């Protein structure tokens, strides 16, 4: 039973190793990648089911008892995140078959993808802060190479910014770990949760807290640390962008939520005030940046930042209802945002550009594609009955209950502005007449049947899930609720970790 915990890390590791052995054969690498991510999704799903039924699971790797050994631990929140990683992996691998060129494929695209998934799952499942640092480095190294793979000029420029800022974040994280070890003498999260309560050096703990906030904040792309994201996310192939937008910033948010609910709980409420100011500013600057953009992917990149603000809002309000909203929002935003990126890739495939001004007339040419865009776009803006509506409803209700009116106002305004930029894409790409001389425009490239399936199946799956999350919100919401209660009341987490054997 507890072996389930190891699988989401082990499966991508084996997949990556096997792909490397099959370096010469692209077809076999593809098959291995597809099999590995499908297995990852199945394993993560089984983990989520077992955690939802029997409570938090923990395993001590190598049978060294906590807090000395490396602990893997899964509560409902981290199991949901692992399932999301598996799902995103499957969708992106399928989409990559039709969009990634032979050059990238033969230089290790699929092994890197699986190393990235391994790092992401490791970060979600670890119960030790230093181990979290190691998983961060694993996923960062894979993402560095994925971002730069192909070697186009724009990719190189984007990569240097992405790499530099993420390395600064890692250095700060490491410094924070060192000071924290000096204070508490342990880095096991459950053990730290016990030792940091009623600590004799609140000033030092506050300093460490701010270091952690900056380190994770850079990775999560919160205001004012997000500038690397819109400068780099639009440069790699769109499958890579979709995967990054779905998982990487979310690992940062996950770490923020995990550490601020488990370790750095501030009774005075000052942290919450600070977090809610940051959340509001993140939402607003992100969405205002998006309003000014006329490039499909850059516009969406700014929206990633703005949605991070909502996730942070759940943490800032810090009630179990708000955290449940944040967990639900996390699922919603991963699906919606990645679906939008994948649609932008299809548009680029059909018309050869991401420039909104040069596009047009796709509603007449491809009505189904237009609908597949509209579902995640309206969901992102928060239209009922899609997933985004219930996600925002939960967050805003939670905000109103504890009377945080400023952040609630910001959230509602940003919802409107999100709708505005989604409508901008809709009119520019789908509704307005095609630009230029219609007769002279080059014929659309023909998609083969298998390419059509590979391009559209992931988008259709995401759109269906968005609708399902909206129409049947109750079971998902109650799952998120149970995850949030485990976050708020950390006693079960601490007890499970410290008593777990093997």
């Amino acid at each position, binding site marked *: 039973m507890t072996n389930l915990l190891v699988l989401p890390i082990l499966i991508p590791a084996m997949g990556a190793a096997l792909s490397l052995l099959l370096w010469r054969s692209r077809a076999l690498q593809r098959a291995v990648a597809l099999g590995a991510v499908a297995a990852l999704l199945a394993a993560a799903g089984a983990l989520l089911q077992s955690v939802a039924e029997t409570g938090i699971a923990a395993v001590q790797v190598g049978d060294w008892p906590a807090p000395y050994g490396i602990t893997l631990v899964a509560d409902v929140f981290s199991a949901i995140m692992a399932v999301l990683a598996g799902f995103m992996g499957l969708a992106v691998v399928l989409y990559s078959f039709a969009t990634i060129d032979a050059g990238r494929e033969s230089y290790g695209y699929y092994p890197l993808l699986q190393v990235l998934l391994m790092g992401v799952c490791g970060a979600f499942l670890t119960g030790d802060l230093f181990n979290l640092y*190691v998983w961060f480095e694993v996923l960062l190294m894979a993402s560095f190479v994925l971002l730069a793979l192909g070697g186009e000029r*724009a990719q190189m420029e984007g990569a*240097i*910014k992405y790499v530099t800022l993420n*390395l600064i974040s890692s250095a700060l994280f*490491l*410094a924070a770990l060192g000071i924290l070890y000096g204070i508490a003498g342990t880095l096991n999260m459950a053990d730290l949760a016990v030792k940091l309560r009623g600590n004799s050096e609140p000033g030092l703990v506050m300093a460490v807290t701010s270091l952690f906030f900056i380190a994770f904040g850079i990775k999560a792309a919160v205001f004012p640390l997000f500038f690397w994201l819109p400068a780099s996310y639009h440069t790699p192939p769109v499958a890579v962008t979709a995967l990054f937008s779905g998982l990487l910033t979310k690992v940062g948010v996950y770490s923020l939520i995990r550490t601020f609910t488990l370790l750095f709980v501030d009774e005075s409420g000052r942290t919450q005030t600070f977090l809610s100011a940051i959340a509001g500013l993140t939402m607003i600057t992100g969405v205002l940046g998006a309003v000014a953009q006329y490039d499909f992917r850059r516009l969406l990149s700014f929206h990633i930042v703005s949605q991070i603000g909502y996730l942070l809002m759940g943490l800032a309000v810090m009630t179990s209802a708000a955290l449940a909203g944040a967990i639900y929002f996390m699922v919603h935003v991963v699906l919606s945002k990645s679906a939008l990126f994948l649609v932008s890739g299809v548009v680029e495939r059909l018309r050869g550009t991401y420039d909104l001004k040069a596009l047009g007339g796709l509603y007449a040419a491809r009505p189904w594609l237009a609908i597949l865009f509209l579902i995640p776009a309206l969901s992102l803006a928060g239209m009922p009955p899609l997933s985004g509506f219930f996600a925002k409803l939960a967050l805003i209700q939670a905000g109103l209950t504890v009377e945080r009116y400023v952040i609630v106002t910001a959230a509602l305004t940003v919802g409107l502005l999100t709708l505005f930029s989604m409508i901008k894409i809709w009119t520019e790409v789908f509704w307005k007449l095609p630009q230029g001389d219609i007769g002279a425009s080059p014929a659309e490239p023909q998609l083969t049947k298998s390419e059509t399936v590979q391009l559209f199946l992931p988008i259709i799956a995401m759109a269906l899930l968005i609708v399902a999350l909206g129409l049947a919100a109750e079971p998902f919401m109650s799952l998120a609720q149970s995850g949030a209660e485990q976050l708020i009341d950390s006693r079960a987490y601490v007890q499970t970790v410290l008593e777990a054997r093997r």
Partner: protein
Amino acid sequence: MEFALALIVGVLYACGLYLMLRRSIVKLIIGLALLSNAANLLIFTAAGLTRGYPPLVALGAARPAEPFADPLPQALILTAIVIGFGVLAFAMVLAYRVYQSTGTDDLDNLRSTDT
């Protein structure tokens, strides 16, 4: 001893950050290297220094006799050094590729993907 090390850590951080604010990519990478070394030294210092008491467990005892030097921070640093080495190697290759594809090592000329 702690004071001297703390001073070195501070100087390393200052030099690293100063170099990272320069426009040359090479200086940026040297700055990154200094920053990760500073973090390693910080872990070593912050965890407490104990001189001359290796953590050896006497025959039959369950744990070493107090006081002893905590070996865990050194294990952490070892891991961090290895990771830092890999990252630094990657950063150097990246810098070279950036120079190849853009023909410049001036960060101010790498603005086409900014918004």
